[in-house]
């Protein structure tokens, strides 16, 4: 499963949204209605799933689903380097 697919799976598990709503351009807070606690849970699930650290600076930059995918791809690459 690709990073993008796993990200989508995590978001669907935590947020009360339909699969077709989780597009790359969807914003977590405005479009997908994530609350602050949802974001904590989503980022925690990212950390556990991909074994990476998402500090608050990285977290703040994540607005859309695609932002999350990009950030995770970078973090995974850095980890492997």
């Amino acid at each position, binding site marked *: 499963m690709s990073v993008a697919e796993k990200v989508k799976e995590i978001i669907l*598990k*935590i*947020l*009360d949204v339909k699969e077709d709503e989780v597009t790359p351009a969807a914003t977590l807070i405005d479009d997908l209605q994530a609350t602050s*606690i949802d974001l*904590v*849970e989503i980022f*925690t*699930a990212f*950390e*556990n799933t991909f074994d990476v*650290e998402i500090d608050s600076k990285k977290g703040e930059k994540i607005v859309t689903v695609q932002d999350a995918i990009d950030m995770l791809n970078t973090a995974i690459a850095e980890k492997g380097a």
Partner: protein
Amino acid sequence: MAVTGLGIVSVLGQSAAEVVRSLRESRSGIRLVPEMKALGLRCQVGGLIGEVACAALGKRAGQSMSASGTFAALACVQALESAGIAREDVRTPRVGVCVGTGYGGNGEVERVESFYREGKSPRRLGAMGPVRMMSSSAALNLAAWLGVKGRSYALSSACATGADAIGHGFDLVRHGVLDTCLAGGAEEVWRAALTFFDNLAAMPRDYNDRPVQACRPYDRDRQGMVLSEGAGILVLEALEAARARGATILAEVAGYGSANDGADMFEPNGTGLRRCIQAAMRDARELGVTAIDYVNPHGAGTRLGDPVEVETIRALFAERPPLVSSTKPLNGHSLGAAGAHEAIFTILMLRHGFVSPTLNLDHVAPECEGVRHVRTLTEVPLRTALTFNAGLGGANAALVLRSVEP
């Protein structure tokens, strides 16, 4: 006070119909628990619910509720349905929640401990913990999930929790603070409870090969209680209001009493129990209750507790002795849920006209003689019943229930 709805998650079933069947047929929910064996506990039997189907509660609820909260929510769905109350009708300041747990969402504490033990980063735990482990977790999750806007809190008094929560709900409605109260108790079994009760020598040790026989209240060979879990919720409304909306009235709560021994944290002396029953009977007498047909006692099967209860029942009801049976051999001791479970069992027996016998009461212990122990299924019309719980910390609570003429 009308009970217009009830809902239950227990090892005897997850609907009123299933529970009635289990009570009638003495189908025990007590099993061998492999995890207790693996932990090296001397008692290795219990009543665990296992996985429950909770997808209907929604994703957010699934995340913020611990197991006990999930049990309470599932019981609440049944309770509202049986009361004929729509979800949108509870979203008012006139509806409240009083649901207790003995110990809160302690499964969460164990998750944290195991994380640290395994050397994982604490950040990986997420942040849902506080609302899953707080002692008001079940009550406040219910309020948020249902949209209830009136008084909502947990009430906790060890093994008397469920009865006290229902009694407090009864008080809130009878004093006009609320129109409707969702009241009851919930509990999830977790390792520390199993361990400490095992160390207390309060759980049977010689019945691991015969789990169904492990809990034997009032019996010569009783060795203690068997832990279990689940939830029970009642919908309480003023009788007139319930009649006015054409609700089916399942039973009436006619009295409530609560009192402490004010003595020892472990050993009951019977004084608080006697006073709480007297207080509940005083309430009930005002409604014309003069006698009790059936008593569902705490009946946990402990060496110390059982004789104290028998003596109290014998002394208080000498003129017209009621039938007595404990449902704990079947359902186990569900701690904070016990009072709610047993109120529901009692209501179901009132409604269906039978008394489920005390299972495993093969030889009544000399110190437990003197009351009308029910040892076989007894079909009998019941008009009034008393259910009580007596717990650690000297806590005692009693409810008088009455059947309602159709």
